[in-house]
């Protein structure tokens, strides 16, 4: 555990991607199985200990530290695991030596909701502050140390000089501590057999379109739907649904796991059918409707009936034993179209190609699209093979221009992570009438992004100097600053006092110059609802 803790600390304090890769690669080479496999699983967020959650840690600390002192400390440090690692009282008497990573994993796995409040403290007593931090991060699965699972995989490839794409592909069917993966990469054993299992194949992704124009002879256009990108995989009769990050989300969408009649790997957009939230009759509802289905471990019959999911297909990676990823997009499209009659239209349709005589006409089509489930257009090179990740020049996403509205800053809260001392989370509102006639502001949204570091410093100072009230970690500010807020769409919502919920709000411009009474009214925002 000490070496893993040292790695975690070093990664926290290392900025450069190459330096991070070197640190992880060195650890993976110098550490034995199964410790290195568990460490790798921790870095990629693949570990899950049902009994140990952030709330478990808070409950554990509540028995040891005054709640107010805890809240103040947590707010200052900005991270529950770190606050705990620092506040943990030095144990009395003798303790067992620090556990290895594998021992820690075994102990954490054995904990139950009943035993965790007794077992976890014993484990923490065996570690120093740095070890406690690493252990709690590992246990709760939220490392937040600037290492994406992609980076960890590249580091693995670098450590043993194997191609990163192969690592990505072999990785997915395996479980921590990945002994077969290490045996293949480090010892030259045969690669793990993933072809016969329904594993995740990495997605092909797109760059935002920055060119002012592209030639439609080379590129085909199709709608970019506002759902979640999914991969549906059936191998040997077994079906799995994966999210964009490769998480298995089959359990949340059981209606999709027994409808694919052939072995295949398909790429598409998961959407919810219905016109109750906008969209064409019997077609796709807005993202707002889909949101009802996301993040659920199990799903009720009512949910299934009210928000039935289907997949709008974009592409085919494999079909009936043939890997077609090397084929050009146009050829794959033909194969996908040929497959469609065999797929039940209750759960599948195909994303239509948008044809236009020229680029200007395409731009006009994009502008006039009013369907709530459309996010914009995708432009795909007709001869592009299906390659993992973002490869320049092959696929572009061309999102609809965002909507804009002027809001007034109302509340601010400190961020987490590297923003832990800055007021970086902003709640803003619109007027519920004429501000000069005594109208009030109603909160309409919250944003954490869209500003530079220099602007963040200035905003932080503004918040501190304009605070009129404090509610725990939240500061209320005087109504003096206007944000021009960009957002993708707005929907009716019962959860908010204003009756509105914005999607993807972010700060577009900070209007230091604009008087707050000139900010927009709720009515203006409500008029932008497309549902």
């Amino acid at each position: 555990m000490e070496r893993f803790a040292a790695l975690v600390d070093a990664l926290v304090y290392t900025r450069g991607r190459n330096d991070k890769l070197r640190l992880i690669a060195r650890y993976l080479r110098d550490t034995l199985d199964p410790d290195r496999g568990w460490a790798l699983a921790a870095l990629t967020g693949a570990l899950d200990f049902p009994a140990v959650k952030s709330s478990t840690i808070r409950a554990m600390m509540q028995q040891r530290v005054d709640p107010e002192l805890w809240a103040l400390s947590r707010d200052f440090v900005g991270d529950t695991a770190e606050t705990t690692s620092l506040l943990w009282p030095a144990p009395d008497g003798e303790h067992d030596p620090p556990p290895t990573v594998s021992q820690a994993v075994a102990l954490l796995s054995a904990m139950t909701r009943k035993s965790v409040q007794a077992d976890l403290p014993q484990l923490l007593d065996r570690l120093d502050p740095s070890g406690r931090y690493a252990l709690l991060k590992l246990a709760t699965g939220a490392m937040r140390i600037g290492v994406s699972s992609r980076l960890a995989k590249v580091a693995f490839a670098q450590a043993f000089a194997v191609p990163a794409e192969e690592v990505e592909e072999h990785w997915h069917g395996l479980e921590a501590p990945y002994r077969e993966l290490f045996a293949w990469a480090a010892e030259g054993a045969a690669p793990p057999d993933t072809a016969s299992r329904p594993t995740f194949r990495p997605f092909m992704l797109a760059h935002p379109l920055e060119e002012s124009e592209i030639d439609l002879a080379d590129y085909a256009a199709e709608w970019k739907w506002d759902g979640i990108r999914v991969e549906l995989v059936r191998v040997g009769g077994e079906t799995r649904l994966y999210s964009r990050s490769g998480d298995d989300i089959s359990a949340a969408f059981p209606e999709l796991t027994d409808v694919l009649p052939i072995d295949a790997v398909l790429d598409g957009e998961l959407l919810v059918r219905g016109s109750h939230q906008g969209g064409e009759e019997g077609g796709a509802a807005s993202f707002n409707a889909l949101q009802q289905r996301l993040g659920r471990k199990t799903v009720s019959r009512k949910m299934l009936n009210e928000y039935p999911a289907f997949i709008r297909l974009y592409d085919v990676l494999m079909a009936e034993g043939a890997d077609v990823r090397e084929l050009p997009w146009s050829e794959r499209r033909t194969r996908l179209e040929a497959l469609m009659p065999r797929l039940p239209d209750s759960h599948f349709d195909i994303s239509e190609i948008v044809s236009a005589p020229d680029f200007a006409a395409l731009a006009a089509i994009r502008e006039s699209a009013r369907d709530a489930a459309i996010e914009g257009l995708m432009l795909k090179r007709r001869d592009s093979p299906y390659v993992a990740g973002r490869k320049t020049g092959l696929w572009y996403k061309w999102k609809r221009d965002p909507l804009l509205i002027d809001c007034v800053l109302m509340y601010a809260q400190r961020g987490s992570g590297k923003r832990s001392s800055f007021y970086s989370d902003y709640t803003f509102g619109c007027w519920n009438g004429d501000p000069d006639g005594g109208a009030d502001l109603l909160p309409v949204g919250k944003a954490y992004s869209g500003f530079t570091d220099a602007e963040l410093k200035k905003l932080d100072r503004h918040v501190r100097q304009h605070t009129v009230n404090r509610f725990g970690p939240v500061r209320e500010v005087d109504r003096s600053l206007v944000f021009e807020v960009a957002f993708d769409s707005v929907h009716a919502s019962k959860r908010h006092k204003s009756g509105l919920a914005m999607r993807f709000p972010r700060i577009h411009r900070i209007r230091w110059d604009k008087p707050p009474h000139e900010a927009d009214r709720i009515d203006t925002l409500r008029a932008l609802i497309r549902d």
Partner: protein
Amino acid sequence: MARDFAWIRPEPHGIHVAPADIWIDPSHPVPRALVTHGHADHARGGHGETIATAETLAIMELRYQTREGARPVQYGETIRLSGGVDATFVPAGHVLGSAQILLEHAGERVVVTGDFKRQPDPTCPPFVTTSCDIFVTEATFGLPVFRHPPIFTELTRLIDRLHADSDRCVLVGAYALGKAQRVIAELRQIGHRDPIYIHGAMERMCQLYEEFGIELGELRLVSDAEKDAMRGAIVICPPSALNDRWSRRLPDPVTAMASGWMQVRQRARQRNVELPLIISDHADWDELTATIEEVDPAETWITHGREEALLRWHQLHQRRARALALVGYEDEDD
């Protein structure tokens, strides 16, 4: 008899002692001031008369280029102010010349600590516990997450890193008054004899420390040194120079910072620090609370820092306390 302590009052710009019409660490110019120590947020220039230790006055002279109105006192010496107020300067263990000020009037005793710490420091005499009715304390690190490790363990990490990357240098950001000299003096104590390179902004303060008998060993200016000569060496600069263009003249520096804030990972990350050294000249949580229990005052006044948490601690321990909300105190760089 109920005591009201009307003779000493916290005002937004400092603590005012009415019978003597004198201010403690005022943040704007006043006719008469008592100054606890030389950090800029406590020792402002432009007062008519400034009463402080000789070391603090020398530091202020270095900064403000004048000795006008300077009235030195020694540790332990009691001076009689007008209006029947006695003032005694007691070591605070914070930096060279730092003092707590004990004020006595009509049988009532108030101690103003300025800033203080309890860890040993070779550059100043250790904190002396002084009994009093009102204890006026700082709370820079007044959160229970702050527990400063012994400086020895931090310097060991510094030396280890120096040896691990011997063709690089380790650049340590350290406050130019106090922290820099303490780090140097402590390095000498653990046997580091090599020349230490310093930023030009620290040269005169280091000389002043030596004039007061603090041995700092061989110091060299970065501006006089060849890049290659600094490989494998320790370089010390003010925190503001850490990520400045100035540091480009150094051989691939490992960026370190000596500060109590380094205990919090994201604080270190915000400053692009690779090697955080938890070295503080302030009391940590355990020192603050132990000191208050030792002094056992009837009431604690908290000048600046994380006052909410320390107030809460008082409440939990059935002790009286209030936060003063003085303006002008800073703690961002220590």
